[in-house]
C-alpha cells in the first residue's frame, strides 16, 4: 500500500484552484470559503449528536445481518427442497449485500471508529468480499475519496477497464465498453480484487515489488477462504442432506445477486448524467471549500425509501458520503437535507434520481463512450 503518487500536502488554507470547475465558476473565493464553513458546521453538528443511539443502530444492523447469514446458509443445507433453496438464497443474498454495503464499506471507512470497539473498527474489520479490506481501504478511502473524479488520478473512473469520461482518450479496445461492463457486473467482487492489486501502477513503476508481493499474498489467502466457504465447505456440508449441488447453485446465485446489486449501486455514484469529472488543474491549489464543491458536483444520489437506503449502504447518499466519508451512515439522511439546501443556495447542481433512471443514465454513457468523441462543432 505504498504507491508513490505525488502527494500534495494538506489543502490550501485560502485562494482557489488553478481552474475552478465550470459548475462552480460563478462562485467567488469568499463564497467558496463560506460554503466550506457551512459544511464543516454540518459535520460538527452530527459529531455533537453522535452517541448511544448510533452505536445501537450499527449493532442492530450487524445482528440482523449475522442472523440472516446464519439462517440463509443453514437453510441452503436443505436446498434440495425448492422452497428452502429460494428462502436460503434470498436470505444469504440480503446478508451479503448488508455485510458489504451498510456494514463493511462503512466500517472500513472508519465511520464507527469513534465507538472504540475493536469488534467494529476500520483497523480490524474484514469483509465477505474477495478483495482484502486493507487493499481496498488504500485504493478506495485514500485514492478514490481524495482524488474523486480527477481524470488521471482517480482510477475508479472506469476501473482501468471502462471508458467512463470523454476526456479519457478513445482506443479501439473501448468498443467493447458495454460488453465489458455486462461481464463485470455478475463478477464484480473479482473485478475489484483485481483492480485493488494496482497492476497498472506496478507496471508503471509506481508500486514496489515488495508491495505487489504482499498484496498478492493477501489476496491469495482471501481468495482461498472466500472460494472454499461458498463453493466447497457449504456444498460439502449440504451433501449430508443430498443438497450439495443445489447449495452450490445457491451460493453462486447469492454472490451473483450481491455483485449485480453492488455494481449497479456503485456505478450510480459518480457516472450518471449530471456528475462532473475534473482535470488536475482543477484540483491544484484546492481549498477545503473547493474540495467540498468537487465532492458534491462529482457525485450522484439515488432517491428512494428507507429500505432502499439501507440496502445501498446509504451510498444512495453518495454526495453526503463524499463530503463526510467518516460520518456514520445512519446520519446521511438528515445531512442530505442540509447539503441539498446549501447546493441550491449556492446554485450548484445536486444530482439525484430513482435507481432505474440512474442505472439507465450510466449505461447510456457506457454505450456512448464506446465510440470516439464526436468532433466539437466549430464555433
Amino acid at each position, binding site marked *: 500500500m505504498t504507491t508513490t503518487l505525488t502527494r500534495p500536502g494538506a489543502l490550501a488554507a485560502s485562494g482557489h484552484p488553478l481552474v475552478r470547475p465550470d459548475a462552480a465558476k460563478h462562485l467567488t473565493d469568499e463564497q467558496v470559503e463560506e460554503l466550506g464553513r457551512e459544511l464543516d458546521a454540518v459535520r460538527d453538528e452530527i459529531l455533537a449528536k453522535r452517541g448511544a443511539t448510533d452505536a445501537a443502530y450499527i449493532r442492530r444492523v450487524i445482528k440482523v445481518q*449475522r442472523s440472516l447469514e446464519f439462517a440463509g446458509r443453514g437453510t441452503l443445507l436443505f436446498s434440495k427442497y425448492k422452497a428452502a433453496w429460494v428462502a436460503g438464497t434470498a436470505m444469504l443474498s440480503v446478508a451479503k449485500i448488508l455485510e458489504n454495503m451498510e456494514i463493511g464499506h462503512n466500517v472500513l*471507512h472508519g465511520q464507527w471508529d469513534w465507538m*472504540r470497539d475493536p469488534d467494529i473498527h*476500520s483497523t480490524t474489520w474484514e469483509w465477505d468480499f474477495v478483495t482484502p479490506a486493507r487493499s481496498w481501504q488504500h485504493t478506495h478511502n*485514500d485514492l478514490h*475519496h481524495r482524488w474523486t473524479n480527477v481524470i488521471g488520478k482517480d482510477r475508479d473512473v472506469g476501473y482501468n477497464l471502462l471508458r467512463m469520461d470523454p476526456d479519457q482518450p478513445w482506443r479501439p479496445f473501448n468498443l467493447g465498453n458495454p460488453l465489458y461492463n455486462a461481464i463485470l457486473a455478475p463478477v464484480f467482487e473479482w473485478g475489484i480484487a483485481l483492480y485493488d492489486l494496482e497492476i497498472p501502477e506496478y507496471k508503471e513503476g509506481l508500486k514496489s515489488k515488495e508491495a505487489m508481493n504482499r498484496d498478492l499474498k493477501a489476496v491469495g489467502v482471501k481468495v482461498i477462504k472466500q472460494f472454499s*466457504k461458498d463453493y466447497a*465447505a457449504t456444498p460439502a456440508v449440504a451433501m449430508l442432506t443430498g443438497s450439495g449441488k443445489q447449495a452450490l447453485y445457491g451460493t453462486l446465485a447469492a454472490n451473483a445477486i450481491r455483485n449485480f446489486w453492488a455494481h449497479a449501486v456503485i456505478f450510480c455514484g459518480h457516472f450518471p448524467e449530471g456528475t462532473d469529472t475534473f482535470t488536475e488543474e482543477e484540483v491544484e491549489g484546492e481549498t477545503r471549500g473547493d474540495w467540498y464543491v468537487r465532492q458534491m458536483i462529482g457525485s450522484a444520489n439515488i432517491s428512494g425509501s428507507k429500505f432502499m437506503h439501507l440496502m445501498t449502504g446509504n451510498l444512495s447518499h453518495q454526495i453526503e458520503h463524499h463530503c463526510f466519508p467518516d460520518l456514520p451512515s445512519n446520519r446521511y439522511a438528515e445531512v442530505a437535507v442540509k447539503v441539498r439546501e446549501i447546493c441550491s443556495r449556492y446554485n450548484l447542481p445536486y444530482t439525484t434520481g430513482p435507481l432505474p433512471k440512474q442505472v439507465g443514465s450510466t449505461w447510456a454513457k457506457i454505450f456512448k463512450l464506446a465510440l470516439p468523441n464526436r468532433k466539437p462543432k466549430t464555433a
Partner: protein
Amino acid sequence: MIRFTKLARVASALITPLTPEDFLALFNPVYSSRQLRGVVTRVVRETEDSATIHFRPGHGWHGHQAGQWARIGVELDGVRHWRSYSLSNAAGHDPAITVKDAGAVSHVLVRDTKPGDVLFLAPPQGDFVLPEHPRSLLMLTAGSGITPVMSMIRTLVPRRPDADVVLINSNSTPEKSLFREELDELADQFPNLTVRHWFTSARGRLEFTAKAIADLCPDWRTRAAYACGPEGFLNAAEELWEREAALETARTVPSITAGAEAQSTRTGTLTIERFTTDLTAGAGHDGGLVTFEQSDREVQADGDTPLLDIGEDAGILMPSGCRMGICHSCLIPLRAGQVRDLRTGELHNEPGQLIQTCVSAAAGPVNLDL
C-alpha cells in the same frame, strides 16, 4: 472459549471472515474474538458513593494475584472508556472490583451497573502483590486505596495463621470507610490481623513521622510496608521511608556501596501503588513532548502541527493516507498523554485509543505506540 477446536475449525471454513464467537455473541454477549468481556453477576453497595461489582469473565482471563488491578471498559454514550481498578476480592475467587464514584466512568459503574451487564476487560496485572516469602506486613491505605490491600488481607489472613498484618486505614469518617465492618470482624476473628482506623474528621491528617507511625505500629521499621492511596499520602509515606533509610546509612555504614545493601536489610521495604500516572496535560495549544515508544524517539512538538508531520520529520515510518482526516489509514494507539483534534478542538486522552495522526496535534506530553 473453543474447547472443540476441530469443530470450530470446520465451522470457521463456513463463516470466514467471521469467527464462531461472532455468531455465539448473537446469543451471549460475553463472546468476542477480539475483546475479553465479563458479565456482571452481583452489585453490592459498600458506602454511599461506592459499590463492589462482581463479574464472571469470559475466556482469556486469568486468575489475579492479591493486589493486582485490571483495566475495565464501559460505554458512555456509545463510546468505550477504560479505567484501571484494583480487584478487591481474594485471589482464587471470581473477580470483583470496588469502585468509588469519582468520575464519568466510575459514576456509571457505581450508579448504573446491574447484573447481566457486559464489562470489557483486560487481564489482571500489576506488581503490587504480597511478598513471596512470609514476612510481617504493614499496610498503609487511604480512601479507596484499601481495595488492593483488601484483596491481600482476604487472601492471607483467613488462610495463613503465621501471617502478621497491621493495617493503618485512613478515611474521613467511619461512614465513608470502605470494608470497615468486614475488617473489624476479621481482626476479631483472626489474631494475625490488627486494624487501626484513622478518621481524619476526628483526628486530622495522618502525619508521616516516625513517632506518629510508631504510635500506631511500634515495630513498623521491621515490617515490609505497602501503601496505596492518593498522591499526597503516598509521597508523604515515601519521604518518611527515605528519611529513615538515610539516617540509618549515616549512623552505621562507613562505605557507600555497602550502605545501599544495608538499607534493604535494616529498614523494611516500602511498596507503593499509585492510582494515576500523572502526565500533566498542557492547556490547549501548548504542544508538548511527543514520545514514539517503539522507535525510542522523542520530539518536541508545537500544538498546531499534526503528529503525522512531527513523526515523519523525525524519520519515523508513519502510516499515512489522505492527510485530511477522512481515510483513517494513519491510526496509531495513544499510550499516554493527550492530543487535540485540529478540526474540532476536541481533546483525546484515553490510553489505548486510536488517534488520527494527520489531524491530531500534541496537547501536552504524548506517548505513541509506534
